[in-house]
């Protein structure tokens, strides 16, 4: 009964969304206030109806109602409660319902927090949101009903893929979706602005916090997925340039570019149509990501929907949404008034450089991700495009961007002199070169990869560049110390946000470089009592025992690890065999230190009395997670800046000659 209520609520939500997509839009173009105001109650109704539906599915999972097909296929009574709940979105239908739920919540948030939005912009943006909702609701109701019943209901469910039974992955999809769907806000505002024919500083100020929030969630979601891959898959890597990873990384790149160009719109009233284009692109890539992941067109670990009808539907949705908005952009963007001018060497100029490189980077990732599809379609053979391609193409594009990242914040708006900015970065440059030389000498010249020295130099350059900018801002050593301190205390939160995020990227680059360049690894058949030494850590395999878990059996190896003769840790990696579905998984044992992770994996018996073991030392891995954490923290700090919440809501009066919709 409850499942039927959930299904019915979804159908009602579709009807409400149709009203919300049409009436406020018509109202806005006719100047009918009552029609425009309808977007408020309809978006509240959306939250309620979709919320009921989501709650109904969650109820089915929590109570293990196996008469619902979705639950029977993806859950099991002996699963821990956390994974019963996470199971709601651990499958195709449920994840789409989660998407819609988040979309509705965002729409409701606009209504709730957007009281000072101009009614025209607000009602149009909410109407565009409703159009996206209609598309996705149709998709769910027509091809992927999560509430379909099963007759007769089975005694127990088939269980959730054990790899997904993990706290990191339980929260990975919701965070990722909060990011994807968050970009829909920027998209809706961009379309609304195109219909209205005006983009101004006030517009950018409304869009920025939404984009920033989406960016924070997306960063968190990607990092969580990457962390999961690192500790759960037991391969010791954290990024594989898998199509699915790329699918989430492309909107991240476009979203990062959007964040920066929106700053230029807000502060300088320039780069307007470019910003609109980025907003459309960021959401378009989010949709494309969903399509790639859900349609099964690309060989990937997440491709659970192999039903072509679904793929065709998403492709149609994609064509309509992206094609339609680009068409609208082509027609309307030339009417946007270009604003403030700037010299190439200025803060706007460096932000533009950042944007161009980010967008090009996203383009190369897109090309690499889709190339196997094209090659197959054009009969060029079956190919796979993997890490060598992306490392050779994407990373070189990011080098000038990181170089410019230290310089940009030191430039002033409108017109600036590069020599002045560079002269302030003398110390940073000197220490970056020193870091490169030190790295080169430490790794024994060309014994290590040459780019490691470059990577470390970039990290040092960026980190010191960020500190230099902070010191400049508070006039450290140039004003009395007390005055510098009081300037420090008065820095706006958004400035702190930038400083923390950029410094976080520097820390991340250091970790990424070290773990890619100097990972040490040893794979062998190890007998009980045998000692293998990796990077100075001596691993002695003490024993291998069978242990019983709540829904699995495991063989657990015990390693005594010592460093320089002193005991370091006892590590117990496992190889688990789950019961439902029957499937083995590898549980790595990881000991994290400041300088690197000690990582042990145990495999099957090698047939000669030993066990296959894989032992790693992964340098500075924790720096990557810390760096990502700093990036997220910086975003959050910036979000709390009160300028994002108050101020500038009033718009300049419409000039008489501006375009009317």
């Amino acid at each position, binding site marked *: 009964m409850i499942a039927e209520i959930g299904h019915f609520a979804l159908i009602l939500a579709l009807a409400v969304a149709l009203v919300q997509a049409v009436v406020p839009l018509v109202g806005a173009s006719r100047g009918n206030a009552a029609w425009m105001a309808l977007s408020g109650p309809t978006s509240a109704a959306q939250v309620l109806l979709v919320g009921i539906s989501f709650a109904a599915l969650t109820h089915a999972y929590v109570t293990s109602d196996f008469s619902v097909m979705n639950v029977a296929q993806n859950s099991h009574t002996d699963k821990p409660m956390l994974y019963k709940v996470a199971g709601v979105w651990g499958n195709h239908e449920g994840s789409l319902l989660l998407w819609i739920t988040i979309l509705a919540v965002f729409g409701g948030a606009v209504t709730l927090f957007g009281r000072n939005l101009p009614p025209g912009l607000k009602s149009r943006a909410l109407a565009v949101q409703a159009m996206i909702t209609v598309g996705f609701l149709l998709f769910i109701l027509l091809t992927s009903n999560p509430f379909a019943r099963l007759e007769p209901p089975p005694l127990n469910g088939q269980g959730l893929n054990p790899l997904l039974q993990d706290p990191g992955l339980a929260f990975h999809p919701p965070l990722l979706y909060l990011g994807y769907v968050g970009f829909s806000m920027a998209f809706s505002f961009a379309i609304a602005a195109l219909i209205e024919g005006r983009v101004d500083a006030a517009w950018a100020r409304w869009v920025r916090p939404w984009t920033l929030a989406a960016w924070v969630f997306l960063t968190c979601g990607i990092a969580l997925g990457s962390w999961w891959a690192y500790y759960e898959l037991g391969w010791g890597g954290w990024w594989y340039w898998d199509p699915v990873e790329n699918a989430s990384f492309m909107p991240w790149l476009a979203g990062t570019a959007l964040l920066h160009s929106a700053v230029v719109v807000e502060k300088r009233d320039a780069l307007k149509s470019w910003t609109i284009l980025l907003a459309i692109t960021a959401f378009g890539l989010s949709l494309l990501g969903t399509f790639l992941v859900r349609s099964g067109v690309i060989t990937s670990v997440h491709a659970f929907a192999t*039903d*072509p009808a679904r793929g065709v539907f998403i492709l149609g949705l994609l064509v309509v949404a992206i094609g339609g908005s680009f068409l609208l952009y082509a027609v309307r963007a030339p009417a946007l008034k270009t604003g403030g001018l*700037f010299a190439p060497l200025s803060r706007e100029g460096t932000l533009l450089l950042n944007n161009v490189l980010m967008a090009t980077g996203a383009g190369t990732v897109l090309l690499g991700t889709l190339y196997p599809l094209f090659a197959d379609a054009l009969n060029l053979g*079956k190919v796979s495009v*993997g890490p060598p391609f992306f490392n050779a193409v994407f990373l070189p594009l990011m080098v000038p961007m990181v170089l410019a990242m230290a310089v940009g914040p030191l430039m002033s708006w409108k017109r600036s002199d590069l020599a002045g900015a560079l002269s302030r970065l003398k110390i940073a440059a000197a220490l970056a070169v020193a870091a490169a030389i030190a790295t080169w000498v430490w790794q024994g010249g060309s014994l290590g990869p040459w780019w490691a020295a470059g990577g470390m130099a970039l990290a040092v350059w960026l980190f010191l560049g960020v500190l230099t900018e902070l010191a400049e801002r508070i006039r450290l050593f140039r004003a009395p110390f007390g005055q510098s301190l009081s300037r420090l205390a008065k820095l706006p939160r958004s400035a702190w946000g930038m400083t923390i995020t950029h410094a976080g990227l520097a820390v991340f680059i250091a970790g990424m470089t070290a773990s890619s360049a100097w990972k040490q690894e040893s794979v062998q058949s190890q007998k009980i009592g045998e000692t293998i030494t990796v990077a100075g850590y001596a691993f002695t395999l003490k024993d291998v025992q069978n242990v019983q878990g709540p829904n699995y059996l495991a063989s657990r190896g015990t390693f005594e690890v010592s460093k320089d003769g002193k005991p370091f840790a006892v590590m117990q990696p496992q190889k688990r065999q789950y019961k439902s579905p029957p499937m*083995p998984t590898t549980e790595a044992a990881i000991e994290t230190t400041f300088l690197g992770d000690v990582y042990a994996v145990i495999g099957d018996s090698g047939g000669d009395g030993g066990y*296959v073991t894989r032992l790693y030392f992964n340098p500075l891995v924790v720096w990557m997670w810390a760096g990502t954490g700093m990036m997220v923290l910086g975003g959050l700090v910036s979000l709390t800046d009160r300028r994002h919440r108050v101020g500038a809501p009033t718009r300049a009066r419409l000039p008489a000659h501006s375009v009317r919709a």
Partner: protein
Amino acid sequence: MTRKKRRLYFVILGLLAVGTAAALVLSALRQDIVFFFSPTEILEAKVQTEGRRIRLGGLVEQGSVVKEGAKVRFKVTDGAHALPVEFEGLLPDLFREGQGVVTEGRMGAGVFLASEVLAKHDENYMPKEVADSLKKSGHWQGEEKK
């Protein structure tokens, strides 16, 4: 700085970035992409495989897996032909006889020297390339996915 000049700057910057990216992409597409072949294609010497990094996919032949410590030997078959593979390392969790597999490496003397055996996260999962090559050799057993 006039509007035109700024636009020109924008265009030059864009062209520069896209040009660099295009050059990088073209060189990477020549060296860094990996072609996928079935055992039949390799054994009938239809393709030039010497010295190149390639992917080999098919089913792990029943009864062919031999473990010697950390070294594993097995055969990959597409029904028509089977090619011996050597791999040293930890096999993915879902590696099993009779299951689909994709390996990456180079051709040695009659043996495929794999440096990677790809894992997939789902027990029912059949890599698309493997399914296609099995269909081609007429040994596709599974039902056609609707």
